[in-house]
């Protein structure tokens, strides 16, 4: 690239053109600053485990980050595990028969994960073989293998961590997932820019999907984890866009008069619920993506917005101030049977549905204190999980165990995550920057 530019250097126009081309080409791949995850409230009784460094021997292909580090970090971040530092390990088994259980008992470790790389014939791919053993019983809980190649090691490590999590907790893990969020660069200045970023669940590998001087809002994942719906003000007005995060292909789904906002994919990915005010007032609409068919679900003078689908796709939860203040309501998919869901407190909005249990998370509060709460609709119990005061945008992990949300610290936005029982909390912080509106993706298959 550099040489080619140099050879054209006598033509100023060409140089400018190729520079422009460079800027345009590089932007979709732009790497953003990485989130740092800090644990705020620990959990008592985290399970003592050890993740032994995986044996890659002298293989040509080595992972970018050692697998055991990625796995141990995932387990620690879940709040349920306390991984032993590698420096404290006395020996390094790679298969169950090499495990000396007495040593691990002395180290007070309950479970040991280990593994090794089995290279394929081409030197560019192979398999990761991995095992989990229980120290007290001496049993092997599982032995598995997973194919891997260049660029896939981190994802494979997250999937191995998910397997360990599921084996030891009984619930599926959620480490092999991504998060989308909005970052504001140089907020409040003339150079202010908005970026939609997609990163791994551990904050690693942040990629800028869209960047614009006008606001970007409300990212929402398709159930396949490939499409992101969001709101763009690129034209000066709000538009709903669906973008393929891998190909970059974009489609405008709703534009024109009034608000085009709050996109939410149905569980089967065929429908997109939105809040549109084309009728003169914001109402909940559903678009069938394949045919473009539009259906209006609500018709009320109130603000009706923030749709969220029930797990079976038969209902849509939404925020409405039809009773005076914002509360969560539910409407059937066909627009009938509108019922009020929240009754506690004078401000409940932005419902997020746990894909696992059906719990509802929301912004709960009033006046000058807004916190994240979960509602168990069977017991009608509302539990407040976050400290406030400006918490918003709750988004469930695909396994329903954690809720990602946005908080404010001084003049900047940070992301945080809290366990659904409120016992464990962490902050996801950028060294310098303003982040908001996190959306946790489905599991990566």
């Amino acid at each position, binding site marked *: 690239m550099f040489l080619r530019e140099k050879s054209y250097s006598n033509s100023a126009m060409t140089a400018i053109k190729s520079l422009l081309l460079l800027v345009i080409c590089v932007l979709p791949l732009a790497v953003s600053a990485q989130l740092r995850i800090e644990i705020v409230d620990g959990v008592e009784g985290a399970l003592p485990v050890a993740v032994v460094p995986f044996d890659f021997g002298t293989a040509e292909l080595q992972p970018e980050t050692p697998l055991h580090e990625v796995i141990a970090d995932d387990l620690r971040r879940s709040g349920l595990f306390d991984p032993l530092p590698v420096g404290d390990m006395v020996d390094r088994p790679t298969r169950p028969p090499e495990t000396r259980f007495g040593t691990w008992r002395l180290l007070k470790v309950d479970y040991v994960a280990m593994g090794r790389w089995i290279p394929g014939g081409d030197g560019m791919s192979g398999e990761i073989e991995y095992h989990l053993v229980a120290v007290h019983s001496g049993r092997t809980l599982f032995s598995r293998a997973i194919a891997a190649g260049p660029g896939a090691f981190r994802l494979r490590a997250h999937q191995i961590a998910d397997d360990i999590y599921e084996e030891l907790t009984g619930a599926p893990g959620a480490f092999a997932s991504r998060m989308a969020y909005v970052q504001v660069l140089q*907020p409040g200045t003339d150079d202010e820019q908005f970026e939609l970023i997609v990163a791994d669940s551990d904050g690693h590998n942040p990629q800028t999907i869209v960047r614009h001087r006008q606001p970007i809002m409300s990212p929402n994942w398709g159930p396949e984890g490939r499409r992101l719906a969001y709101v763009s003000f690129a034209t000066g007005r709000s538009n709903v866009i669906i973008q393929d995060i891998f190909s970059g292909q974009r489609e405008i789904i709703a534009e024109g008069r*009034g608000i085009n906002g709050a996109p939410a994919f149905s569980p089967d990915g065929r429908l997109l619920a939105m809040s549109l005010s084309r009728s003169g007032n914001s109402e909940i609409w559903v678009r069938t993506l394949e045919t473009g068919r539009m259906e209006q679900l609500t018709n009320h003078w109130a*603000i009706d*917005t923030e749709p969220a689908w029930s797990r079976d796709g038969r209902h849509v939860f939404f925020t409405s101030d039809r009773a005076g203040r*914002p509360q969560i309501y539910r409407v059937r998919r066909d627009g009938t049977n509108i019922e009020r869901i929240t009754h506690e407190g004078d401000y409940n909005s*932005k419902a997020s549905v746990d894909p696992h249990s059906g719990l509802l998370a929301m*912004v709960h509060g009033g006046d000058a204190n807004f916190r994240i709460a979960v509602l168990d609709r069977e017991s009608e119990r509302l539990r407040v999980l976050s400290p406030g005061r400006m918490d918003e*945008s709750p988004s469930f992990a695909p396994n329903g165990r954690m809720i990602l949300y946005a908080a*404010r610290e001084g*003049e900047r936005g940070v992301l945080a995550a809290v366990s659904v029982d409120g016992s464990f909390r962490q902050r996801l912080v950028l060294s310098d920057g303003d982040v908001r509106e996190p959306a946790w993706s489905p599991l990566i298959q």
Partner: protein
Amino acid sequence: MNFVSKIFLVAALALLLGACASDTREVPPEPAPEPQPTEPSDPVDVDRVDPADFADSRNLDNPDSTLSQREIYFEFDRSDVRPEYVPIVRAHAAYLRANSSARMLLEGHADERGSREYNLGLGERRGNSVLDLMLAEGASSRQIEVVSYGEERPVCRQSSESCWERNRRVEIVYTAR
């Protein structure tokens, strides 16, 4: 529109709006010249402009005229135009009536409290209540568009009431004068 009807319109406007101005004149002003495209930075010759003449585009940049005021502020989670801001809306409605080619954007905003999409709705509702008042004052719906930015474009970034009250606003932005 001929010259006589133009004079009549201006006179009628002046009578109608005279009550809003602090300096009420008995004699209607000279008919304003055709609105010239003026740059906002042009100094206004205040000696020659009546600040209560809401048909005169020069008053958009005249700090003595109500037309130079473009922000309307709201209470928390409310969208009704408070009485003290009604004269501002009336002045701009009068301007739109007198200048049929003028176009404006009503940008609705909210403070940071509560969820973002709800605040987008709140910003639009604030824009709409200013729009409704403008229409009631005789402006044409063809001249006005409402766009809500919710809480995405704050003018002040601290989490305090003194900041929030500046962010709960509708900004009048002329896209054509």
